[in-house]
């Protein structure tokens, strides 16, 4: 017996209670309700997933729960139906699990905010829509969740709306997402035209039926390509891929738990999830899959380069998120759906951890976000320091932390990929370079925030304090997950086997390739980290303590000063300037293009409003012109 609807209901009830009755009770009740409901969802998801696991035949591991018939147009019916299969089960666990931790964290983070209740109402609403998105069998219901999470994201980005910049960031997110939704909606309509249904399971049945009985497929290769590309445009908008990524860095204007939950762990991965869910459509169109892979790889490296030159701690993490999402698209683009989802899971752990850690830092420093005004926080914020270290090593891909395994698998898949657009080697090279840059900027971030001399402004110095337990406990749990989550996933291929009903058992890679990729990715991870330590720790004002703890490094750095300068001129400076150029490109060309499109439309509006002179005679003339054209045309 599955209890699918009870995964979605608890947060919904909690949010309604907080919304309607919240004013009569205090923050503690609000917080308990909000967090407790998500925990309950998590437990129900866990229970249902376990029951799913208990079904012996992997192919039949699907459970569905029809709540009611939502609408029907003639023969075409859309029930509100939830479907739990291994993929949506994994997503539910991530959403409710990580979501619960972030809820808990937010209690401490938002405690003093006057909009406390509103914040939790939005947050619970987000969880509801996100669960709707992943549990929906019908694409239209999925679209409801899709738009709903967008709306919540928009509300939460602009949460501190006293600042006009936040409001416009929220608006930018909304408008850019609408452009993506345009593609999604067209894709949806085309799917409906082709299959006459929007139910994923029915679509799959139609296709497998056609294959089994050697009937012509319901869609031509070209149609499949067009549909897949349209849907991918939607995914680009939601998951911040080139060229629709511009909203995500701006979205960091929202409170940090929001960045962790929505703009790192869950919502932005919806695009990856959607493609993984519709993998059978993408299987028809190697071209569309190739496009997904290329856009993913390009985003991975492009965002990583921009990340090099950022000084705002959350901006670095934002570009890092865009880059990691690029990895996931690279994975699903080359057909490695299992590893795309696997990376989605591990990324949810370590990126949520990094965001929450940065939130803890910002919280301790009374809202300071500039990396140049941090440093030396390792002693003052020990829990944050150690957990952040775990997150940094995980994202950099250091063995045996989570990021290593998922990234490694993606790189192997990219290396072996055969796409009609680009060779697997090129994808692999791009992915590896991005991994190197990731290690480098994360090392830089870590060093600038926690190591080195303290550059915090004097008036904020005495405020620095470790966060309350509601904030540190989630950090510790996420750090543990970031550390062991990856190893647990590859142990006996447990994650791949869990998803095998959808994607089949993964092919074993040739050992030579596997070892080569493993060595290469480890090398770039350590290389990137070492280089960043080398460069950012050798500043002249380095405190003695650090000199002693990392004495051999310090001496080596000091002695090899010329080499270091060489490094700076050959590697760091060019990379830095490329980063600056990338940022400038982003700011001046991409942003402008977005603005110009809006401006162009507005200009057209102005021109058109000139026709509206207010003079009745003019109206009559336009009217007459219309009539005579019509008369000529209709003859």
């Amino acid at each position, binding site marked *: 017996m599955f209890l699918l609807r009870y995964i979605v209901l608890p947060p919904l009830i909690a949010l309604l209670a907080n919304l309607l009755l919240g004013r009569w009770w205090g923050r503690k009740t609000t917080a308990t309700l909000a967090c407790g409901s998500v925990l309950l969802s998590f437990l129900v998801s866990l229970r249902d997933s376990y029951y799913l696991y208990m079904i012996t035949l992997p192919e039949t591991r699907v459970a569905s729960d029809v709540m009611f018939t939502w609408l029907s147009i003639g023969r075409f019916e859309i029930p509100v139906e939830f479907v739990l299969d291994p993929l949506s089960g994994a997503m539910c666990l991530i959403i409710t699990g990580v979501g619960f931790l972030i809820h808990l964290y937010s209690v401490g983070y938002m405690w003093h905010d006057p909009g406390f209740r509103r914040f939790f109402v939005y947050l619970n609403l987000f969880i509801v829509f996100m669960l709707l998105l992943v549990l929906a069998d019908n694409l239209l219901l999925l679209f409801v969740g899709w738009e709903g999470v967008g709306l919540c994201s928009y509300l939460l980005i602009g949460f501190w709306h006293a600042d006009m910049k936040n409001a416009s960031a929220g608006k930018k997110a909304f408008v850019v997402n609408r452009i993506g939704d345009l593609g999604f909606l067209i894709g949806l309509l085309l799917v409906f035209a082709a299959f006459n249904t929007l139910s994923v399971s029915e679509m799959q049945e139609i296709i497998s039926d056609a294959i089994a009985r050697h009937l012509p497929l319901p869609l031509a290769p070209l149609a499949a390509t067009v549909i897949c590309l349209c849907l991918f445009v939607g995914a680009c908008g939601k998951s911040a891929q080139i060229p629709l990524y511009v909203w995500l860095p701006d979205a960091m204007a929202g409170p940090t738990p929001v960045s962790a939950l929505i703009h790192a762990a869950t919502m932005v991965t919806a695009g990856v999830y959607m493609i993984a869910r519709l993998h059978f459509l993408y299987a028809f169109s190697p071209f569309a899959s190739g496009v997904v892979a290329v856009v993913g790889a390009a985003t991975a490296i492009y965002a990583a380069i921009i990340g090099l030159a950022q000084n705002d701690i959350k901006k670095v993490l934002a570009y890092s998120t865009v880059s990691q999402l690029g990895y996931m698209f690279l994975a699903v683009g080359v057909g490695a759906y299992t590893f795309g989802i696997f990376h989605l899971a591990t990324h949810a752990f370590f990126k949520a951890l990094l965001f929450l850690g940065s939130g803890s830092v910002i919280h301790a420093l009374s809202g300071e976000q500039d990396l140049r005004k941090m440093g030396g926080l390792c002693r003052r914020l020990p829990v944050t320091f150690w957990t952040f270290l775990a997150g940094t090593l995980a994202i950099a891909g250091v063995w045996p932390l989570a990021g290593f395994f998922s990234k490694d698998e993606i790189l192997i898949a990219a290396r072996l990929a055969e796409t009609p657009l680009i060779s697997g080697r090129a994808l692999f090279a791009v992915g590896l370079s991005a991994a190197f840059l990731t290690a480098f900027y994360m090392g830089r971030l870590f060093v600038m925030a926690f190591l080195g001399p303290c550059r915090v402004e004097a008036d904020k110095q005495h405020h620095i304090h470790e966060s309350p337990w509601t904030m540190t406990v989630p950090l510790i749990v996420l750090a543990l997950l970031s550390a062991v989550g990856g190893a647990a996933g590859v142990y006996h291929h447990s994650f791949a086997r869990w998803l095998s009903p959808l994607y089949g058992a993964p092919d074993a890679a040739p050992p030579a390739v596997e070892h080569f990729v493993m060595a290469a990715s480890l090398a770039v991870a350590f290389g990137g980290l070492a280089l960043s330590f080398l460069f950012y720790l050798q500043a002249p004002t380095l405190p003695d303590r650090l000199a002693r703890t990392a004495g051999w490094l310090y001496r080596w750095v000091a002695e090899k000063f010329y080499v270091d300068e060489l490094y700076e001129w050959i590697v760091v400076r060019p990379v830095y300037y490329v980063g600056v150029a990338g940022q400038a490109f982003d700011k001046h060309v991409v942003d402008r293009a977005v603005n110009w499109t809006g401006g162009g439309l507005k200009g057209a509006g102005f021109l058109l409003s000139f026709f509206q002179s207010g003079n009745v*005679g*003019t109206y*009559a*003339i336009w009217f*007459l012109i219309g009539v*005579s054209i019509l008369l*000529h045309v209709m003859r």
Partner: protein
Amino acid sequence: MSHLLPDILFYVFSALSVAGAVLVLVNRNPMTCAMSLVVSVLSLAILYLLLSAHFLAVAQMIVYAGAIVVLFIFVIMLLNLTDEELGRFRFSLFKTIGAFVAVATLLAVAPDIRVSIPAPAAGDAGAPAGYGSTKAVGKLLFGEFLLPFELTSILILSAMVAGVVLAKRELQPKKTHSLVDWLLGFFRT
């Protein structure tokens, strides 16, 4: 010859009707305009006669030429506009474009209409006996077109109310006792 006479009359009076309408548009003096309008509506009445619509022709004369234009003339006389107030007729780009487009529209319709008017059937003896008489029109109005006829009364009523609302000076009723108040008071005492 007798075949030609109705045709000649038709062309003469339709030309007059159009000319009258154009004069209404281009004249500056409202009195001249009103008189041109009379020409136009009377010519139309003749056209109705030529189509054996006797009742309609008479109604056209009484209602339009008789009532409506007279009303116009009253208003014009009450306002008593001088030549200075009226200004002179000026050509403007605006009017030129308007005229041009109007003629273009007309030209767009005219050729099609001309070539496609169905020729009368060979045995067509024209209008049946009594066609266009008061009796025939009455039968139509209270028979086939009963509902449109009734609807017209609503239409005219609402047009009247609309006119009064827009023109009345004092909108709110004075604090006087109405009939109902008086009756109610009668019961109260």
